[in-house]
């Protein structure tokens, strides 16, 4: 038995993460640290405390609840992260929702139950659930119990992955997945290291092996981050790689700034990029590059 997985959100009515109406399950923990990360609360594998300063009433009722004196009222932040052991007692004492526990432990059964809340909508739309994060493959042991339960229920399951995982862990999941949404961020290893903190050799190798095995279930996705991944050079590299491996469809995912407001709340190691989001023109320009190379651009 796995010890369960830490999930920080279940997002219902997602219609751009696989076919139909889907519930996206966001797992905590990720091996990469992409500069533009949209879900920075997904990086750390453990639950953490977020603080929204605009919601704080300053009532200080949270302070006595913390045995470690990790709640502080000097300056903008509220948590002394060195002292905090993330027990969550402070969040319970907070009525305004300024302090919140991000991430909750789920057993496979519990997660299934909650993920199935929208079953009638999945059935009507041909949708299902999409595993995301963070990086779902970090929870390989949990998934080996969770995915068979999903299949017993006939759920359509998609998984979004960065691909940075040992192939032996990835392969056993495949029979349970209807669709793998596989991110390709950069082909040049140096660029990839600069953008994500990790090398991409294993990512590209895994992708090639998956394509050989289960081509129809793999969908490559490219995040378009202005000046980072969506440079002409990088896109041409990606197109070259995909052509070489006879990938003829791709989804493009526009960068947006929504994620940055979360950084401060959890004192994330990531810094705001202050980039403008990718607009329709950026998207069209990038899509054009793929199309002229004979790669179809699908809805994300």
């Amino acid at each position, binding site marked *: 038995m796995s010890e369960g997985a830490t999930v920080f959100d279940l997002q*219902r*009515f997602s219609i751009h993460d696989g076919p*139909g*109406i889907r519930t996206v399950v966001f797992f905590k923990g990720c091996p990469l640290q992409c500069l533009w990360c949209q879900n920075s609360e997904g990086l750390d594998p453990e639950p953490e405390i977020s603080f929204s300063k605009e919601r704080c009433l300053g009532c200080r009722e949270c302070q006595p609840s913390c045995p470690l004196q990790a709640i502080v009222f000097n300056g903008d932040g509220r948590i002394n992260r060195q002292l905090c052991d993330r027990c969550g007692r402070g969040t319970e004492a907070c*009525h305004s929702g300024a302090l919140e526990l991000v991430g909750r432990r789920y057993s496979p059964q519990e997660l299934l139950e909650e993920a199935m809340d929208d079953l*009638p*909508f999945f059935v009507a739309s041909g949708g299902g659930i999409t595993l995301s994060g963070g990086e779902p493959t970090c929870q390989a042991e949990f998934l080996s119990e969770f995915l068979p339960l999903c299949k017993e229920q006939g759920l359509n399951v998609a998984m979004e992955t960065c691909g940075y995982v040992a192939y032996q862990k990835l392969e056993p999941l495949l029979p349970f997945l209807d669709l793998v949404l596989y991110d390709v961020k950069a082909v040049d290893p140096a660029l990839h290291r600069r953008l994500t903190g990790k090398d991409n050799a294993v990512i590209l190798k895994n992708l090639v092996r998956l394509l050989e095995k289960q081509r129809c279930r793999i969908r490559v996705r490219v995040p378009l981050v202005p000046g980072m991944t969506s440079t002409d050079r990088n896109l041409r590299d990606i197109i070259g790689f995909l052509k070489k491996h006879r990938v003829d469809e791709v989804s493009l995912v526009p960068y947006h700034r929504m994620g940055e407001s979360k950084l401060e709340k959890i004192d994330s190691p990531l810094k705001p990029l202050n980039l403008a989001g990718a607009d329709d023109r950026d998207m069209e320009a990038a899509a054009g590059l793929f199309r002229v190379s004979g790669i179809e651009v699908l809805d994300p």
Partner: protein
Amino acid sequence: MSESTVLPEMTIESFPRLSKLYDDLLSARKEVCIQRARHITDFMKGSDVWFMPPVFRRARAVAHILKNLDVGIHPDELLVGSITSKRVGAVIYPEFVGVLIWPELANLRERAVDAFDISDDEIKELEQDIFPFWMDKVLAWHAQEFLSPPQPMSLLFKGGFFVLTEAAGISHTAPDFEKLLRVGLDGIKEEAGEKVREMDADPVGDPERFRERAFYRAVQVSCDAVVEFAGRHHAEALRLAELETDSEKKDELLEIARICAKVPAGPATCFREALQSIWFLEIALHQENYEQALCPGRADQYLYPYYRDDLEKGLITAEQAVELLGCLSVKMSEFVPLFAENLATLFSGFPANPSVTIGGVTADGADATNELSYLFLKTRELVKTRHPNLHARVHGQSPPQYLERICEVIKDGGGMPGLVNDDVVVPALMAKGITESDARDYVIIGCVEISVPRKTFGSTDAALMSLPVCLEMALNNGCSPVMQEEVGVKTGDPREFRGMDDVLGALRNQISYVVEQMVIGLNVLGIAHRELYPSPLLSSLIEGCIDTGKDVTAGGAVYNFTGVQGVGVADVADSLAAIDRLVFADKKVTMDELLKALEDNFEGHERLHQLIVNRVPKYGNDDELPDRYAREVAELFCGEVAKHRNPRGGAYLPGFLSMTNHKGFGKFVGALPSGRRALESLSNGISPCDGVDRKGPTAYLKSVAKVDYSQATNGVAVNLKFNPTYLRGAVGTGNLGSLIRAYFGLGGMHLQVNVVDRETLLDAQRNPAKHAGLMVRVAGYSAYFADLSREVQDEIIARTEHCSQ
């Protein structure tokens, strides 16, 4: 469905005539038309009117109005005749609540909400000749003076308990236009004549039956009056044709003249004649009955034989049919209601809601969708007129392309069509004693109300009642904190309540009491309508009246209902959930502390307020606790309403829609345990409170679908708002359709969707002229955003915008 019926390539530019008529409509100022008021006053001042039986007097009064109304034909029109003498005008009904506008006449041109143009001469005529005559003859005052016990009227005038819309008139029905087209008014007149001859041949019998003679004579007078009114349009068209030099335009006018000579007297024999005949009746019915919800009904069904016949004979194309339907939409939008300022807040955006219902099932349960259903959708896409209020019936076997087309039109903005679920409505109506084939024929009346067309006088918007004020009285031993009156039932000191059963028991008693007072008020108004202002023209088009010799106001229709709405279900549900969780389950606060916080409007109780706002689940999030209370509150209201009967011999039907009364009632409700602060707006229809739904549209709709709609047969309103970018493209359309199907599969009854983004609405607030045609769903109806009061605009902006990323 073939391309020819969906007309995918057609835009408004493909219809220059329609485009011009639509632009004229949008750019016209709203004006008050005093013609009807003038003519009915002249007639009623006549020395012989007191001598006539009321039903006959009413027929003669309406005939007098129709005889004297201006007849005008606007350039480029294909369908002619107008309800008012203005391009966009409001009618005054002084015998109902028209006189309420008297004190506001001077300010009408400048008032902040719903301003109207009116000339100084017109104001003078109203002030000197018209309104003084009516001061002591208004229906509601008659009811108060001669019929009503004091309490219901006293509650009515306090403002915060209920609004008795019937004081303004009844209307709210879908007349038998199918019969009109089949036999013409001459045929109906002949039926009445036949009844009189039968009576004369067998004069012995029920001694009361001679009362019926006056009714039949009234029907005959009414029919003749409408035919004569059409005849004046015939003459006007001939006159204009004579003057016209352009031969094409001359032919158009001659065709108009031909049609006006033929219908509505005789049967219609082509699609265009059918539309013109219906339109003449709409005009005439609006002279007899106030302007709310005189509905064409299932027009795609009864017009279809005429359309198909024309197609087969090569007399019409789909494009021409759309042009004609567009012309009808424009004509129907040339009139708006005039409300006194305090009422304009309750009914913001000029709703009159003649509604058209498309799709659904046939009498034998098969899918009823036809080419005309699609043409109505296409028309809606082309011209976003305020009328007709378009509703699409959907059932489990509705064709996928029908739902897809509906979703495309919804995505195009404006909140139409609204959607209603046959699989829930039909069995619910049958449980109320309606036959299966009649139930399957139901239509939407007005906003979202449900009724069997052709056979029902259902007064579907007779009254609206505040449920939160009942909760307040339950928590204050019968006293309303804002109105400072001990009017309710003594239900005991809430500090002594031992659990939720006591709270619910007290709530039930208060609701029961207010429902009772509302029903008494409506019953006396219903009697007053029968005794003062019967509706013989409308009766001639409602099945049962000619058979029984009884006017609709006297119970002549086959089905007689009175529909009343409960407002603020979500506020009460969230409040009960908070009391349950905080006072009784978790014991985090005492009842006394909670009541003190409510009394202080949460000022100085910020932590408790935050606890309620953030840590107590709210209806609209697929959470069992508040959803169960929403269901219980709805059941409570439905159960109390169902106990009562109206003076027409029919049952009371409960529903949950609010127009914009949730705003008005909110001003009489103090802080609630739901966390809502004093005097703020209440929730809309059966929708969750604005902004509390945080788990997306599926959770929202699952919550809403948990309410039991089998009792709510008067209809409900459910709002959903989407950011357009999220629903872009075929993926968005498809998933919107799936969302609707799954929600209806779960037992949802109704849905209306706004697809508009926040920035557009904010910009429209700042630059109304730039967004003159921007239409949004308000409650059970759509309105131009610029026509809404500031606070209703703010509410629409505040509604949770799903998927705004």
